[in-house]
């Protein structure tokens, strides 16, 4: 069971910028003088008002080396905590609390009404995993964009990008014994369809906008995983924590897998309720059966195409997030209230609060279906 809604979207004001903005419209954190909204420095003592915030202890000066001048905490650096935005989508990648560096990588680009996002998670047991994930994400996003611009359909572009990313990562290894490795997942969010491709256990989800814990307008649907047994007014998803990522009802609605044959083309699978779009390549929990690297077999990315019927977001993430929260119905409330960046931050914060055992990377890409 997860208490996601309690620690998630309600706290959007507690992050860096949100909180600082609130402080600005009240009193100076150093001298207490009143300050007006929009002022960058305190008129009385010169205290910078926007930057003066420590992640741990609140309003406090942070020195140029990045340490809080009050509690000493090193503020997250680019390598520890990265945020990106493109075409209305957003991504957040965080080192987490247990790892000494961030071995995840993300890429987010947008052009011509299409947004492309890639997440790679470096395999910790391989050498230089952070180089693998960086190469995988960069190559994947660049090739996807180039293929789409050249007129390739999203499924073909997704497959081509994954194969090229696999080659780039394999090129980092000098032998099978020295083979940086990573997982790979991409999402192409266009005006009408969502295309995902993956190798490994990084995931993509469809999260319906306003997907409520208790559906109010569509209670008859049998595919909403949380609806039938959730008591009214409770935010807690009902039912046991399933071993599989998707409840039986939900997977029934996603239709058949796209077979690995590249020549095969099927109609996009319609999407309504929040659901996991990928299927982990694992032989056992956290034991990968497929990955990118010189020691991996021939690249065989899996690709699926969907056609969401309602507004929502595509969530692309590493296991640093879904290891704590993997049910699509539980993830959806995080994306409802704020902007994609706020949603991504809220999800990362949830994983950190739950222990932050792994690196956490989250992309939130909005989708609006064309008018019927």
């Amino acid at each position, binding site marked *: 069971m997860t208490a996601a809604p309690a620690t998630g979207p309600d706290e959007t004001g507690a992050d860096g910028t949100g909180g600082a903005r609130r402080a600005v419209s009240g009193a100076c954190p150093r001298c207490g003088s009143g300050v007006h909204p929009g002022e960058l420095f305190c008129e009385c003592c010169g205290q910078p008002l926007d930057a003066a915030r420590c992640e*741990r*202890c609140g309003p406090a000066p942070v020195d140029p*080396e990045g*340490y*809080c001048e*009050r*509690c*000493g*905490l*090193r503020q997250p650096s680019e390598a520890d905590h990265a945020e990106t935005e493109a075409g209305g989508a957003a991504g957040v990648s965080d*080192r*987490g*609390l*247990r*790892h*000494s*560096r961030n071995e995840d990588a993300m890429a987010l680009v947008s052009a011509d009404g299409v947004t492309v996002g890639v997440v790679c998670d470096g395999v*910790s*047991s391989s050498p230089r*995993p952070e180089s693998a994930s960086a190469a995988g994400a960069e190559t994947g996003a660049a090739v996807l964009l180039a293929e789409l611009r050249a007129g390739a359909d999203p499924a073909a572009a997704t497959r081509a990008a994954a194969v090229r990313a696999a080659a780039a990562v394999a090129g980092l290894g000098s032998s099978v014994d020295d083979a940086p490795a990573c997982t790979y997942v991409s999402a192409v969010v266009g005006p009408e369809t969502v295309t995902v491709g993956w190798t490994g256990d990084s995931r993509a989800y469809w999260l319906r906008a306003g997907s409520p814990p208790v559906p109010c307008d569509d209670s008859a649907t049998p595919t909403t995983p949380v609806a039938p047994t959730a008591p009214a007014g409770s935010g807690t998803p009902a039912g046991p924590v399933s071993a599989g990522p998707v409840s039986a009802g939900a997977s029934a609605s996603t239709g058949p897998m796209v077979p690995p044959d590249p020549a095969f083309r099927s109609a996009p699978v319609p999407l309504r309720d929040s659901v996991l779009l990928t299927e982990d390549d694992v032989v056992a929990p956290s034991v990968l059966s497929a990955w990118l690297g010189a020691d991996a077999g021939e690249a065989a990315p899996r690709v699926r195409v969907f056609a969401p019927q309602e507004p929502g977001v595509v969530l692309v993430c590493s296991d640093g997030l879904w290891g704590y929260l993997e049910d699509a119905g539980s993830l959806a409330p995080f994306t409802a209230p704020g902007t994609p960046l706020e949603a991504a931050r809220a999800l990362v914060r949830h994983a950190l609060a739950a222990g*932050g*055992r*792994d690196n956490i990377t989250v992309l939130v890409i909005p989708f609006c279906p064309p008018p019927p």
Partner: protein
Amino acid sequence: MSDQPLFTLDIDQNKYLPAGGGEIHAVLTVEAAGPAESSAGPVEAAEVIIVDASGSMGGYKITEARQAAQAAVEALRDGVHFAVVSGTHEATKIYPPRAGLARADAQTRKQAAEALRRLRADGGTAIGRWLRLAAELLDGHPGAVRHAILLTDGQNGENAQAFDAALAHCAGRFVCDSRGVGTDWAPAELRKVADALLGTSGFIRDARDLTADFEAMVENTMGKAVADVALRIWTPQHGRVKYLKQVSPTLADLTGLRVPADQLTGDYPTGAWGAEARVYHLCVEIPAGAIGQEVRGAWVRLVRADSGEVVARGNVLAQWTDDLALSTRVSPGVAHYTGQAELFGLIQEGLGARAAGDLDTATARLGRARRLAEESGNDGTARLLDRVVEIDPGTGTARLRRTVDRADEIALDTGSVRTARMRRDPGEPDPSGGRGAAG
């Protein structure tokens, strides 16, 4: 061009702490690369020479002391401000006869030598009073390198409270090197003077060596290029400096000398600097953080007292990890100087036990000290220990020597503050920069 020495600060530590851990150790090496000797503008200096003239100094000792003080006066560079103080149960300035200090030149040096010739041994010993007079005289030269040389042969006659109050009064006002002659003085008392007044204490075994020693102390003072330098240490909120000790070239506890600079920062005076290196052991307590978090546990800055200029700076870090291989490692510098402090402690305990007649404890402590001195490369202390304890080369068993010269015991007591510098292995990687374990 300026003659400012170039200060460097090197920090050796293992930043990794286990979950819940809050004590960080770091070894700070401060080096001053001095300007060329006798360069254009030598720094101003003020010197007070204090000679014990109590009754016990009678006979050959007062003669040797006079000669040593005269040699010290001779060694003063032209233009140095100086005075000579005679110490008994009172403190009397015997030169110059007028108020304040004299400026060294051929004439004043000759007059000071004459005043010393009239010095007679009579009365008690009140070291605190002598130091207070030195402080008063040196206060008139705030920008100068302020230094005093103290020579005594007996135990202080003041009560501990008066002595401590005098040391507290003088701390930060001048640096004092003190020397004991004969075998009736208390090494611990002069060590207290050295700790409080940032100088050295030593034993002059043969009064005939006094002259050379006094000359060396004066020359050392003349070689100082910066009058007052402080270690400024910031610790985070709810953290504190548990201790700060100088660990090389000698041991001295600076913890009690803290002068608050602001709520989170304190200054620890280190006195005047020439071209030299000193090493400090800093121990900081901070609130435990979460696994993976990194904090600055201490921000160390080296500050000139006159200009407030920060001449060197560095961070002592802490990062919490659940990897025991990381958190249990001890940095080589911390290990070495912890060993040197342990060596000093063993010698003090051993000598104390020996004086109290507990020969078993004395043998155990001093035998262990002898092995530790050898292992850590402290040859000087090993030689001093050899006069007191012998190790059977076959069995390795320690045995106290049956007869020990009182002078050897004092030499060991005073010499035990001298530590061995760590042997540096240039190929050694920075222990705190190691790669984290793959998770």
